[in-house]
């Protein structure tokens, strides 16, 4: 009787294990599938366009004749928007994390944290519209020469979008700093701000840097805001007031433009996507490496 029971138990355990493993493999297999298709189409692309041209040419004009396939303008556009976004999100995200972890009372925190979480849930298309219809007019009011589509507006709004992410990851890292370290500092006559800046942030630095890198990686891959607000003109510039095009926005443009399957324009999408994939992959690896390398042991 007992033996039969435990046998049935081990069978159901076995089945559950298989189901759970299947769930894991869905995401792993999908990732492998994506990489394989990316590599396939990308090699097709590089049979037509040389790697040298791809990485050194300064123009990206796949839809014009003569077509140029230098990815630099798209990479520059992507980084321009991303850098603006991080410049907005990092200080505000850190400040909000410091406030929540060191200053806010339990009550205040209970109100603010859900609000930040709501911000995370706002669809990016809404942020894109917000950039185009609210931030851009303000910028153009102050700086009338600004293009309607510009990197600055998209970057600012993307930064706003990233604040909750940086804030919540950094706050997690800060609240993980043991209370005993804060007390040690207070007992040495430290003020609240000194405790935050000289004890909590240094102790939580790996988590904070990791939050920046993950935000960076998210910003590089973000599509909707830049498609709506930053423009569609590949532009090798560092002027944030000009219209640019990011890697993601280019991909959207070509996919929606129904480029003929197998054509060089179609394949260029995969080459760009592959570069994007490598960039975010390496950023994520660096982020995780930093977390592990500098993890504080309390």
């Amino acid at each position: 009787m007992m033996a039969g029971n435990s046998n049935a138990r081990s069978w159901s355990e076995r089945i559950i294990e298989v189901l759970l493993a299947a769930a894991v493999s869905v995401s792993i297999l999908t990732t492998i599938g994506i990489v394989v298709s990316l590599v396939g189409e990308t090699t097709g692309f590089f049979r037509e366009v040389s790697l040298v041209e791809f990485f050194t040419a300064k123009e990206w004009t796949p839809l014009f004749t003569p077509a140029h396939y230098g990815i630099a303008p798209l990479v520059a556009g992507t980084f321009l928007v991303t850098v603006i976004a991080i410049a907005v999100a990092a200080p505000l995200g850190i400040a909000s994390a410091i406030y929540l972890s060191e200053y806010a009372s339990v009550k205040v925190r209970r109100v603010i944290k859900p609000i930040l979480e709501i911000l995370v849930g706002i669809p990016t298309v809404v942020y894109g519209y917000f950039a185009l219809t609210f931030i851009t007019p303000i910028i153009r009011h102050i700086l009338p020469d600004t293009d309607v589509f510009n990197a600055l507006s998209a970057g600012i709004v993307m930064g706003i979008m990233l604040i909750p992410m940086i804030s919540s990851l950094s706050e997690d890292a800060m609240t993980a700093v043991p209370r005993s370290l804060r007390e040690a500092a207070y007992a040495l006559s430290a003020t609240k701000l000194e405790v935050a800046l000289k004890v909590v942030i240094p102790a939580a630095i790996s988590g904070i840097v990791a939050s920046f890198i993950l935000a960076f990686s998210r910003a590089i891959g973000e599509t909707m805001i830049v498609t709506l607000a930053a423009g569609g003109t590949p532009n090798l510039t560092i002027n944030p007031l000009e219209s640019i095009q990011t890697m993601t926005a280019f991909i959207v443009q070509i996919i929606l433009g129904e480029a003929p399957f197998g054509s060089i324009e179609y394949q260029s999408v995969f080459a760009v996507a592959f570069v994007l994939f490598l960039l975010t992959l390496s950023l994520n690896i660096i982020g995780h490496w930093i977390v592990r390398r500098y993890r504080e042991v309390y």
Partner: protein
Amino acid sequence: MNNIILSIKNLTVKYGTTVALKNISMEIAQNRITALIGPSGCGKSTLLRSLNRMNDLIEGASVSGQVLYRGEDIYAPSVDPVAVRLQIGMVFQKPNPFPKSIFENVAFGPKINGYRGDLGSLVKQSLQGAGLWEEVKDRLHDNAYALSGGQQQRLCIARALALQPEVLLLDEPCSALDPIATLRIEELIQELKEQLTIVIVTHNMQQASRIADYTAFFLSGELVEYGETEKVFTAPVDKRTEDYITGRFG
């Protein structure tokens, strides 16, 4: 008693609605060692933390009554708790060095408080004061976490000494240490009493009788007995004190 450095008057401390200390009045003698003893939860740490306003940091804690430091009430509205902690330092039960170098740990307090002298010699002097200098002088820039528990606790004492406080509050500083490390800290505490006043919480009766000049016994938030250590241990007035120190107590 000799000079009084701290004078506690009708001190009541609550956490929310829990009363942790009930109307405590006692005086602390300068350049002496005062031990606070009593069963777990009787309010020893609470009293210690009231003496440098560390209880301010606990949400829901409220204090009434007075703590006069050299005649001035540290709970007066005009008093900045940060300034109080400059005079009255604290060492905790569990060693809690910062995840920084040995040097940076000791230099932390002076640096944030705008010390203008020679930091190097202040650090050396503080480590010597805590009896740690000889052991760490060749590795001041190693991480403090590489030290043993007893060394870390002496580092925490050095760190507190670097601010040259008048009073040092020690909350069971030896409870995480082995007997030899404990003895070293006890010796150290006795040397330190030349320069400053020490209030120490301990669960260890022998420790209290070995090092303290005065001993206060607490029970459920009340001060039951307070006097010269010798007297408290050999001829306690209250029956409850006797039961506690002879171990006939839960």
